[in-house]
């Protein structure tokens, strides 16, 4: 993309019908707003790469870094370690250096999707702290939390951006143990960041936009 050219955003519903299961996301609209107002920058997708997200972000002129933190955690730690949450500090540092290999202030946005929900508490907190350092001031982070009241263990979702207003979340893989989050605990979780904005969807999913 020509850095001098204004970014273009495909208007929702203008050309193509939405895929089945796509839903509107106000958090994504906020996140898109940050992307469209920014010069070409580094964006992180820590839920694993999806073609729709890749096209959307790179068409706006940004670079996309992709990694699936759940998969990476599964490779770096044993199942027992992840379930008990007893992780060595050095191993966590190594995991973060491998999975989010950026210097301080290098990224302008991060898509965390629902990954915080499925990481053990100490690891999730360490990832949040790492993102605080890697994101530059004013950067946005999008996170999703499944309904607290869900009785069955949810599966992690494959999430992709359909357009600037719509997301497609598809549960994939076996149900996983989740870390419970309430609005209050989410605020505490992101206490380092400048602001936390909540969006409740029709499916009772909590979407969050966190500003660095």
């Amino acid at each position, binding site marked *: *993309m*020509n850095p001098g050219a204004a970014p273009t955003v495909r208007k929702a519903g203008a050309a193509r019908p939405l895929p089945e299961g796509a839903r509107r996301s106000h958090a994504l609209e906020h996140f898109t707003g940050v992307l469209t107002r920014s010069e070409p920058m*580094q964006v992180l997708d820590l839920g*694993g*790469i*999806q*073609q729709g997200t*890749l096209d959307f972000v*790179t*068409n706006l002129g940004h*670079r*996309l*870094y*992709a*990694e*699936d933190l759940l*998969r*990476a955690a599964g490779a770096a730690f044993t199942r027992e370690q992840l379930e008990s949450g007893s992780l060595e500090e050095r191993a966590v540092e190594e995991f973060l250096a491998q999975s989010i290999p950026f210097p301080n202030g290098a990224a302008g946005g991060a898509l965390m999707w629902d990954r915080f929900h499925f990481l053990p508490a100490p690891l999730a907190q360490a990832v949040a702290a790492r993102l605080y350092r890697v994101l530059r001031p004013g950067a946005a982070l999008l996170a999703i939390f499944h309904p607290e009241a869900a009785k069955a263990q949810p599966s992690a979702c*494959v999430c992709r951006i359909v357009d600037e207003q719509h997301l497609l979340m598809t549960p994939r893989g076996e149900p996983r143990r989740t870390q419970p989050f309430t609005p209050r605990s989410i605020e505490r979780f992101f206490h380092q960041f400048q602001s936390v904005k909540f969006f409740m969807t029709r499916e009772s999913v909590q979407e969050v936009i966190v500003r660095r």
Partner: protein
Amino acid sequence: MWNRNKKEEDDTPMRSTAPAPETMRDTYAAPAYPARRSIEDAPTRAAAVIGKSVVVTGEITGKEDLLVDGRVEGDIDLPENRLTVGVGGHVEGGVKAREIVVYGVVHGNMEAGERVEIKKNAKVIGDLRASRPVIEDEAYFKGNVETIRVDPPKQAARPAAVAAAAVPVAAAQPAAAPAANPGTPPEIRRG
């Protein structure tokens, strides 16, 4: 009689030598490399093959398509051609090619002037630069993706305008420029 002629006319397109449809050309069956090549690579585009049991250590450069089904430990540079890393292929090193298609494993940065396709169940760790990156569901990719923008050629310009526009570019070329790539259009120089 009329019907028979009609039938012959109807049959004619079926025997045409039109290229295979895109969907057909993109299908891939692991053991069927010869069939794929026979469709896609016509007689003039036979691909070199690094077989399953072959291990290559060092840099590979060339001007023909390459299929890696074995292991390559080193950089691969095929600026005008296509690299295919087969299901059993494993590349440990940087890759530059016109097109890159990965069914196997690549651990290194990839750069393609045209498309890069990372197929389902492929594994790529490294940065990716291409004009058309395509990553299928259930492929594993870790790294940075950057899209190279290629401006489409302007066809509406008049020949005189094109010649005039080409002069500064041509003038900027060194006198002893390397031989032109046969695939690229000839430069227009003012006589």
